[in-house]
């Protein structure tokens, strides 16, 4: 699966997406951190995939630890995740807040082709619960 959706889907990523910069937080269910953790459900063919929906070619990420911690308080399964963080450069992708008014901490990140993340993200928070 490639990320050539950009040529096939109109307005994808959306025009209001801006170059990513700064710290990105993403939850992973297991270690080690691998590239698969930074692939969208559409790229992996996982649940909720729908190739015609632009946001499903992106990754759900948070921009602050406060938003991460609140998500973990709301979702039991996220308490079992390792929270990873990494810095991305402007040329590596675009990002846009995609949470509705009730979820302002949520952002969708569309990575450029060939950008690797696994080696640049590290665990900043261990799981707070076990199954």
């Amino acid at each position, binding site marked *: 699966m490639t990320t050539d959706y950009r040529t096939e889907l109109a307005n994808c990523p959306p025009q209001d997406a801006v170059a990513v910069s700064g710290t990105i937080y993403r*939850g992973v269910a297991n270690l080690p951190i691998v590239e698969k953790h930074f692939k969208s*459900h559409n790229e992996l063919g*996982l*649940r*909720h*995939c729908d190739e015609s929906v632009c946001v499903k070619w992106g*990754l*759900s990420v948070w921009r602050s630890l*406060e*938003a991460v*911690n*609140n*998500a973990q*308080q*709301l*979702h*039991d*399964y*996220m308490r079992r995740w390792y929270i990873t963080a990494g810095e991305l450069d402007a040329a590596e992708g675009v990002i846009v807040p*995609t*949470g*509705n*008014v*009730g*979820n*302002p*901490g*949520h952002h969708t990140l569309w990575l450029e082709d060939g950008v690797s993340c696994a080696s640049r993200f590290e665990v900043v928070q261990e799981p707070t*619960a076990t199954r």
Partner: protein
Amino acid sequence: MWSPNSPARPTPVDGTKIKPIEVLYYYDGPTIFTATLGLSEVLFSKFDETEDTELFVVSPIKAGAVAALREGRLSVRGALEGESYWVVQTTGELHVVKSWSVSEYELPTRILPARNHGLLHQLNPVPDTLEQATGFFSVKYNGPALSRQSISFRRLKSLIGEVYDVANNYLIPVISQVSKYSITDFELAPIKLASLLISIKRPIVLQDAIARRKLQIAPAEGILGQIQQQRDDLMTGMSEVVNEASRREISMSFAGDHVTWIAALNTLTPPRGDDINVVEVATSDSHASRMIVIDADTATRIKAAHSEVARFKVTLRGKVVEVNAAASTFVFRADNIRQTTCTLDLERFHNLVSGGELVVNAQVEVTGMFERRERRDLLHVEQINIAPR
């Protein structure tokens, strides 16, 4: 207790495909959302996932809950909480593959969202009940001493009395010509057991009582506005105290500046060892909701500060509401909230009165030894400054 291995207890959603109506939280797919099942609107909250399936806890939506959730005024736990739930296992495409009908007692609490957490993390903590999310002023007591089935009569009377005292002493303004208690009241929401929730829906001005006494006083809107202002001042002051006490012991200088609010919190929080370990105080109106949570350690620090401040020198500012020449005392209201009787030496008192400085409505700043008392606090004034009129 329910577990994914429990035998299915089919529900009306078996075999259907769930279509989210409003997605309230999204992370690699909808995690908290509303949907319509038959004629009912329900709330889904995801609590587990595997490679192929997702697990949701589902409950009927209460009127007003989604709007309160969306605005960050109600916790997700509060929106979900009820006497029974469905647990629903779906495919990644939200086709229901298995479901269970589960009572509240069978549902592991860890699969529910944490208490007091809403969708907007900036606004946490938020109430777990709609009554708190929409009530004018609410106090909720939590602890092992309180159960859904019953409550000791004595405890109920005591806790209601404490909330009643704070509402009357701190929310209702001084009203000239008449006892304020005779022309005001509060309308309560139905009292809820389990955790004891006492929620004032709104203050009331008793127009009949005003008419009967032929009183010429401010219009009801004015009194209601003052009650709202005093409620907001009370919440601001109590929040400052709780923030301080949640981090460290309260210093005497801090306590001296927050005497009024420490006294209110002391009234609202039961003594340690009372089996009530968390008290929540919430306010709400059309433009904002606020909540403070007082745990047992914080309450202990507040009570320690309260007992210390009773013997502490303080400086208070406020307005004179009564001058009693016969007793050579005056009464003033600090921060427009609680009345304090002030004593000072006779010669100074009479000079200030005869000079026309110490009069009703004068703004004063007084420093002296503060004495906490049951009915009205007492200040032995050592220094007094009266603002020029």
